[in-house]
């Protein structure tokens, strides 16, 4: 459940500082406490250690996502994403993977949808290269979600220049703009 109690004002930039536990108020979601929707939408930052020797496999996975989206630009549509940022970095000789996603569904639904998407396409997930990832992830969604929750590093500050706006609303606004511009062209 996302709480949008009042229609929020997109024209007024907003920032939210988030307590250490990752939420402002404890609300139970299906798989654990709900992470809040902030001016920067829903999202997560998953940080996990890469299995030794798998760094290249993680990088290659970036190429396969690029190819999948080029082949079918809407293949990730169900995840309701704004942005993905994937980063690899080292700490004391170990390689870590950071998966940052900004999206409009809640954390648990995103993960459920992602498992279904990966299972359906038959492709594996980048997570199989990470330490501690459940081997039976395809059939054990709760274990997949637990891994995500265990490795989530909640933000302590999130900011939106155009806060509370979903990707669908942005696309709608751009479509209106395009239609308006087309209309003006027709009137020349």
């Amino acid at each position: 459940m996302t709480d949008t109690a009042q229609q929020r004002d997109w024209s007024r930039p907003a920032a939210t500082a988030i307590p250490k536990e990752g939420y402002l108020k404890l609300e139970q979601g299906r798989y654990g406490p709900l992470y809040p929707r902030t001016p920067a939408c829903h999202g997560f930052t998953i940080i996990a250690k890469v299995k030794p020797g798998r760094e290249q496999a993680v990088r290659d996975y970036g190429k396969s996502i690029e190819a999948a989206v080029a082949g079918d630009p809407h293949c990730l549509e169900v995840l309701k994403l704004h942005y993905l940022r994937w980063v690899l970095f080292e700490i004391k000789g170990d390689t870590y993977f950071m998966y940052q996603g900004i999206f409009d569904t809640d954390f648990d639904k995103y993960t459920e949808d992602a498992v279904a998407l990966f299972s359906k396409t038959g492709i594996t997930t980048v997570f199989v290269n990470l330490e501690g990832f459940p081997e039976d992830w395809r059939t054990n969604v709760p274990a997949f979600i637990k891994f995500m929750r265990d490795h989530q590093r909640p933000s302590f500050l999130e900011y939106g220049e155009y806060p509370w706006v979903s990707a669908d609303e942005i696309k709608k606004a751009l479509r209106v703009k395009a239609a308006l511009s087309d209309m003006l062209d027709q009137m020349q």
Partner: protein
Amino acid sequence: MLAFDDIQHILLTRVPALTGRYEFLSFRNAAAGRAWVAAIREKVQSAQQARASVETNKRWVSVAFTWNGLRALGLNVASLATFPEEFRQGMTARAEILGDTGANHPDTWVGGLASPELHAIVILFARDAVERERSRSEHQKLIAQLNGVTVLSSLDLEATPPFDYAHDHFGYRDRLSQPIIEGSGEEPTPGSGAPLKPGEFILGYPDEDGPPANLPQPEILSRNGSYMAYRRLQEHVGAFRDFLRQHGRTPEEQELVAAKLMGRWRSGAPLVLAPDKDDPALGADMQRNNDFNYKEMDPHGYAVPLGSHCRRMNPRDTAANMNRRRMIRRGATYGTHLPDDASEDGVERGIAAFVICASLIRQFEFAQNVWANDKNFHELGNERDPIIGNQDGTLEYKIPKRPIRKKITGLPAFTRARGGAYFFLPGLKALRYLATLGDGRQS
């Protein structure tokens, strides 16, 4: 091949019952509980039995257990731990997730349903009131013989007139969109999609993703079983009719408002196919009344508002992974009919229904949490399901319309949760297994 002789009939069949009764039981000791299971098991029909005798039978019995109930029967700790977390916690612990807050909070529930003492339900569907009374009295005798089984509460079911088709107290035709299980022998009606893998509803079979995993152990206990989410939803018929009158000047306009809340006319005719005027013949025609989609036929919600009950509970082609979110619905209405010209009489009436699925968290809880109660479903901003969502009078309901949509603010609650529970519905062999447990000593 489905084990029709082991699966409880409620999972696969609809019986021609006009009445019935639910009894909610508590086991004071394990031996008495098991003796009850052994005795009632004789009355529980499998799908095969129910199908073979549907014309002659007068009553049909199903039984199911809460997690506390399985524990009370003496199921061992290791086995109890193999049940999924949400079932172990029970419906009351999941209240916030389900939208059971405020007036719907378990603290306000009736009949002891929120109590950890709730261990089992026995569901009786009966052809008529005489048969119900006979069965009630027979069960009462059984309980009286057993020292240690008590009835926490009961609920008598009553169909609402007219009796020639199933509908709720608001008048909406029911049972129009049910998933069909592969191998059940039933054919989906046009528009209902292909049959679904049995594992979506019955434990021990492949589901839409493949072979089943993480089933409760031992296998004999889970095989051919399922989970049932019970909901007792009071329907505020007076408030509903007042609302229709407030928003529609003529009977036709009021019917349209009712249709816009649901996504179908009360006759069952889908708004996608009959957007402007009711078509009762379409509503009653199972070959036509479910044959539509939203993405192509009504993308903006001009026929069916984006937030309507039907569109939330079965978004069809506008949601992902629909095959993993389907649910079987069973149940009935309770309480007396409120005549059309009568004002609210304060008598509780509503729906006492079961949602049957293989995963409460993936199917039932998802539907309650994301579809019914997410205020931002389809970017709606400040809405919940107008029929079953948690409404506290602060939300709105938008009806798309050219040139400008109609926005209703301060939507009242038309329903209220008065009780509920998560049950495990075992197969008949599993019932025998439960009846013969040895006080936690079984392996």
